[in-house]
């Protein structure tokens, strides 16, 4: 394990920013710290960097404890949310700053800066000042500046927060490929799940100063470990009593102790029986609202008094509000304590096995 946090606790006044935080990161991985604002993710990043000191616990980098090592001596590159580019220095001087401090020779500095400027695709802009660059360009300069002294660990605080939507997409891809190419262990903080899923090899989900789950994006999506993760990742509807739906009835007729979580992807909405493979497993519902969402159509339906949300493709026939439709619920997440479980639609699975 390259980076390890052991039993980290941190308070700001009465506010618990980190509570018993434990996790480790393998060398060469690109890890996303994902959580709502105020969940303590930036604090974790700043503690790894040495910009904050934990109240207790150990931070290990490359096998040695770094708690008492000054931030500048930890071999970390840090990309600030605001970029923190030196506003009175040119692009060249910004990137060269760390190298100058390392007392590298002029030749080496020029070579390294040129290399990095090319990497970030800003060759020819060396003489520009930060305020003469666009948001996306500044972000890349901040990235290059952090990389210049050859850090073993790269930390990025909300790297895309200040960039407009269109550029952000391109930049994400660029960052992912570039970090992959360089192979530097990296941790970035984000509150945007789409960003985390798209960029990270691994995601660590934080909530109220605690780690909820760590895993690959797919693992987290398919097997959320806690109710929080299930609700935070993807869209979802909470259902008080999922046993009232076909295929989910409890054996003894008792109401379930746990709530259920339903994602729109788990729901199939059909105009009539012909659109659906297993109509017997489907409920009937009423269309309450229809929203065109560009690449698909969101349909709000009411099934047995429970509002649900699902999608239809643009290829499927149009629905109208008030229409009766078939609603097939494929599966539901439930939670026992802090443990999740996936319950499949029983009627559907049974029918499938019969047909096959």
């Amino acid at each position: 394990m390259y980076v390890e946090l052991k039993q980290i606790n941190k308070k700001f006044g009465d506010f618990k920013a980190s509570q018993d935080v434990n996790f480790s990161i393998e060398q060469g991985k690109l890890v996303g710290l994902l959580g709502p604002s105020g969940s303590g993710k930036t604090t974790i990043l700043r503690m790894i960097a040495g910009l904050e000191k934990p109240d207790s616990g150990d931070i290990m980098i490359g096998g040695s404890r770094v708690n008492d090592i000054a931030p500048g001596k930890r071999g970390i590159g840090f990309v600030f949310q605001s970029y923190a580019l030196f506003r009175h220095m040119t692009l060249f001087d910004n990137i060269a700053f760390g190298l100058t401090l390392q007392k590298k020779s002029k030749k080496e500095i020029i070579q390294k800066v040129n290399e990095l400027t090319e990497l970030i695709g800003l060759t020819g802009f060396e003489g520009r000042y930060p305020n003469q660059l666009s948001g996306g360009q500044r972000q890349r300069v901040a990235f290059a500046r952090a990389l210049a002294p050859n850090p073993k660990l790269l930390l990025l605080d909300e790297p895309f927060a200040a960039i407009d939507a269109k550029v952000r997409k391109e930049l994400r891809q660029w960052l992912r490929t570039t970090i992959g190419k360089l192979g530097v262990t990296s941790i970035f903080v984000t509150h945007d799940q789409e960003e985390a899923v798209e960029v990270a090899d691994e995601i660590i989900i934080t909530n109220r100063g605690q780690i909820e789950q760590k895993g690959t994006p797919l693992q987290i999506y398919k097997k959320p470990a806690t109710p929080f993760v299930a609700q935070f990742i993807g869209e979802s509807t909470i259902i008080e009593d999922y046993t009232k739906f076909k295929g989910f009835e409890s054996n003894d007729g008792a109401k379930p102790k746990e709530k259920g979580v339903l994602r729109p992807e788990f729901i199939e909405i059909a105009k009539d029986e012909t659109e659906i493979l297993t109509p017997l497993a489907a409920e009937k519902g009423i269309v309450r609202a229809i929203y065109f969402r560009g690449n698909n159509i969101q349909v709000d339906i009411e099934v047995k008094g429970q509002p649900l949300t699902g999608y239809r493709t643009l290829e499927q026939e149009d629905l109208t509000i008030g229409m009766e439709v078939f609603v097939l619920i494929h599966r539901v997440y439930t939670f026992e304590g802090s443990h999740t479980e996936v319950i499949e639609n029983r009627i559907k699975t049974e029918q499938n096995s019969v047909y096959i």
Partner: protein
Amino acid sequence: MAKVTRVIPGFRFTMGFTLFYLTLIVLIPLASLILKGGGIGFGKFLQTVLDPRVLHSYLVSFGCAFFAAIINSIFGIILAWVLVRYEFSCKKIIDGLIDLPFALPTAVAGIALTSLYSENGWIGRFFYAIGIESSFSLVGITIALIFIGIPFVTRNIQPILKDLDTQYEEASMMLGANRWTTFRRVIFPEILPSLLTGFGLAFARGVGEYGSVVFIAGNTPMKTEIAPLMIMSKLEQYDYYGATAIALVLLILSFLILFSINLIQWRMSRLKGI
């Protein structure tokens, strides 16, 4: 409280130097004033401070400073408004001129104002013609204090007014308020805290002002003597304890003013739920 991290190096040096210099230049001398001033004894202290001539000088200092700060508040709002909201020629020059009282030595201001507002002065002759003694009088002292206080209110309101989104005003207009109501109900509450700061600073500065006032005041006992002048004249008689006693009262009163203005501001910001 947990361990405080200070990431940026230099904390110990800057803290050390700041405390050392502050102690040397401000704290030790002020402490000496208070300690030595205490040597006068309570009876003598009261006798000095309650001397009618001294009491009157406080009245003159505080009264004139208060009045001047009020006038500066009114003109300060107008100036800030004009400079932020309107475009006109030589606006830049006017804006630059506002700081003149900061830049001009008080003694120069003092003799210039005295010459202007005296009986035969360029402006004074008009005042005297309508029966107002604009120099060697309370009016003269107030004029000097207005001069000194001009920048405080204007410079405090200007940035607030600049940052104030005109949408508030537009919203108020759309709801049917006229310009004056809009100013009174929407804009004025926004600038009130900075107006108070400016007022407080101008007032405090006016109470302690010496250089610009002493020439135009005339310094007639029981009429136009200001408190700083009383300190000065005690010193000229080598009455150090007397001077210190007057100074201590002046200091305490000035701090009380600044403190109560801070208190009002704090109350106001709490009411707004900030």
